[in-house]
């Protein structure tokens, strides 16, 4: 890659938290600005440099017809396209609309629903264009973001773990909330990256980083069902920020169907 690669940051439907993680890398921020040219980042600057860009970071999910067209343009502009966060990678919390009638949403909130032009679903970027790398999390971990930028500058693969949150609990000596407290926890099927924060506060993992490699959430769901957890509780647990991710979605749909 060139000595000073050009970086672009794009936003689709999201809360802005992931792109702000770039600003959150306070100690690294000015160093990052030294090694990459931040060529397109509306949140932080006004002027925009012309593409194409070496790396495009995409935050947010695809929720409008305009988004569908725009993400194709973004793909054309970027040599490497990386999704950052649960919205871009899995559709985000707003993908909960995929199980509901979106028109019902709109008429509830707005007096003039005819002005609102939105798709029925919120979908991940990868359902529309090829994605080179996914950075997980709701929000992403800034250390992983800095690692990603560093890896791309040096032309190597980013070192991001693909094992489960359970490994992180063991590392920080957190006693298992599922085993010791009988809490239904998604840790065993969720990719690591957050540092296993929630179990350290005695609460369940709710899957911010999405399904890990080869996760089998249905099997975990069966285990919790057998332990007496209500199936709708498990459905809700799976339907959070990564509810639309394939493995979580398959399991939650199966559990919901079984409940009916």
């Amino acid at each position, binding site marked *: 890659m060139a000595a000073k690669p050009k970086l672009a940051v794009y936003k689709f439907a999201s809360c802005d*938290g992931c792109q702000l993680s770039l*600003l959150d890398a306070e100690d690294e921020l000015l160093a990052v600005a030294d090694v990459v040219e931040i060529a397109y980042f*509306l949140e*932080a*600057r*006004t002027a925009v440099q012309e593409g194409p860009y070496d790396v495009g970071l995409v935050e947010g999910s695809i929720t409008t017809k305009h988004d569908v067209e725009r993400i194709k343009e973004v793909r054309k502009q970027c040599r490497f396209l990386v999704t950052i966060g649960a919205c871009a990678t899995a559709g985000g919390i707003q993908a909960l609309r995929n199980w509901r009638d979106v028109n019902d949403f709109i008429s509830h909130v707005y007096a*003039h629903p005819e002005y609102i032009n939105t798709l029925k679903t919120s979908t991940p970027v990868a359902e529309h264009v090829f994605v080179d790398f996914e950075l997980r999390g709701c*929000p992403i971990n800034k250390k992983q973001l800095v690692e990603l930028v560093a890896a791309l500058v040096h032309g190597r693969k980013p070192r991001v773990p693909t094992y489960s949150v359970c490994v992180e609990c063991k590392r920080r000596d957190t006693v298992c909330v599922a085993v010791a407290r009988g809490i239904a926890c998604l840790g065993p099927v969720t990719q690591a990256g957050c540092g296993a924060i929630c179990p350290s506060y005695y609460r369940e993992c709710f899957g911010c980083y999405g399904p890990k490699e080869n996760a089998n959430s249905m099997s975990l769901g069966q285990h919790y069902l057998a332990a007496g957890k209500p199936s709708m509780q498990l459905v809700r647990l799976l339907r959070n920020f990564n509810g639309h991710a394939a493995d979580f979605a398959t399991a939650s749909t199966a559990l919901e169907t079984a409940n009916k």
Partner: protein
Amino acid sequence: MTKRIVIDPVTRIEGHAKITVYLNDQNEVSDARFHVAEFRGFEKFCEGRPYTEMAGITSRVCGICPVSHLIASVKAGDAIMAVDIPPAAEKLRRLMNLGQIVQSHALSFFHLSSPDLLLGFDSPPEKRHIFGVAGVDPKLARSGIRLRQFGQEIIEALGGQKIHPAWTTPGGVRGPLDEDECKRLRGWIDEAMSTTQAAITLFKSLVGKYQEEVNSFGTFKSLFMGLVADDGTWENYGGRLRFVDQDRKIVADKIDPADYQEYIGEVVEPYSYLKSPYYKPLGYPDGIYRVGPLARLKLCEQMGTPLADKELAEFRNLGEELTTSSFYYHYARLVEVIACIERVAQLVDDPDIRSPDFRAYAGVNRLEGVGCSEAPRGTLFHHYHVDRDGIIQKVDLLIATGQNNLAMNRTVAQIAKHFIRNGKATDGILNRLEAGVRAYDPCLSCSTHAVGMMPLIVDLVDPSGNVVRQWKRDG
């Protein structure tokens, strides 16, 4: 027929937005509007979830002020449980909210607005960003980034991560603050204070250059609303609502936030997803009010800490008329940062924040709850209805940026009328329009709780229907 100038989207504010300027046949500005065009639908998809999950879900409304949503949400949860939370829990939540205000205000001042103030509204756009500031004044950029980090690290110390920390819960919080963290934060207080003082000095030295902007960035009569303690001290977590007018005369006081719907009405304008709230007794649109740092300074009697009170006295000396300009939001933000740092310094020395009694437990004891707190941008309300099992039946979120909607519209209209002549707008003028909105530090992800684009027309059309110009910077 009118023609339109559209800026789309507004850069350096959070979320998606556009500005449309309407020209008449004489090429003069007849009106201007600020639009928001994102829709995500939080109020609806929260239905069917337990109220205990609401903090985690609604914090995803916004990655800039997730803590504000966490706090309003768990306060609504406290109301549903009908509990008084332990003193340690309140202090810890307060500490996190102070961290939130510091980081958000630092982001607003240093990262987003200092490029305009330091480099000028007419400076080349390719320089007008935090890295441009770093080129001119590396110390300022560096210290501003560090000040935001101070706020973010308070949040991280308490909640485990800076954005969307899963730590507050109905009934209290999930853990105390350990002594090592207190020590680390204590060691940072002096630096944070001197950065903020330097920023205030900078603002005061620069404001003289921008008299034209001061006089056109939202100088109009309006009400101001926010939380205030019963003794009139500046608040951000507890207290009751107060409305004052532009002369600081109290219009309504000691309102229980749970009764907000008796005082605040909302209209929906077709041009924006944002609802326009107004003070009901005055009706719409006369009931226009502003929230946020400027409002909180207007309506309090004192900040309650020495350095902030000293600064408040200077602010008052400027006179009420001058500080009715929304340009002074920037100054108010910095005064609040001083107050926050002083309060953080008090709280990290308070033994209560290491108390093991930080959470109250209870079931559903009320079927309705309102949670209210001051987000960096203004007063935030979460209003939930639940069933006996605590499952959400109905959600209303009244967001700070939404409450400033009418004021932001009036501000862009004022700026457009003042600066645009003969239908000609330079980049500097367009930047002023954006900056007028940016003064309110709007958080548009929040305010629309949004996903989807309104089919807003982004043409610039002259009286004969030709596209004259369009400033389109796709988000």
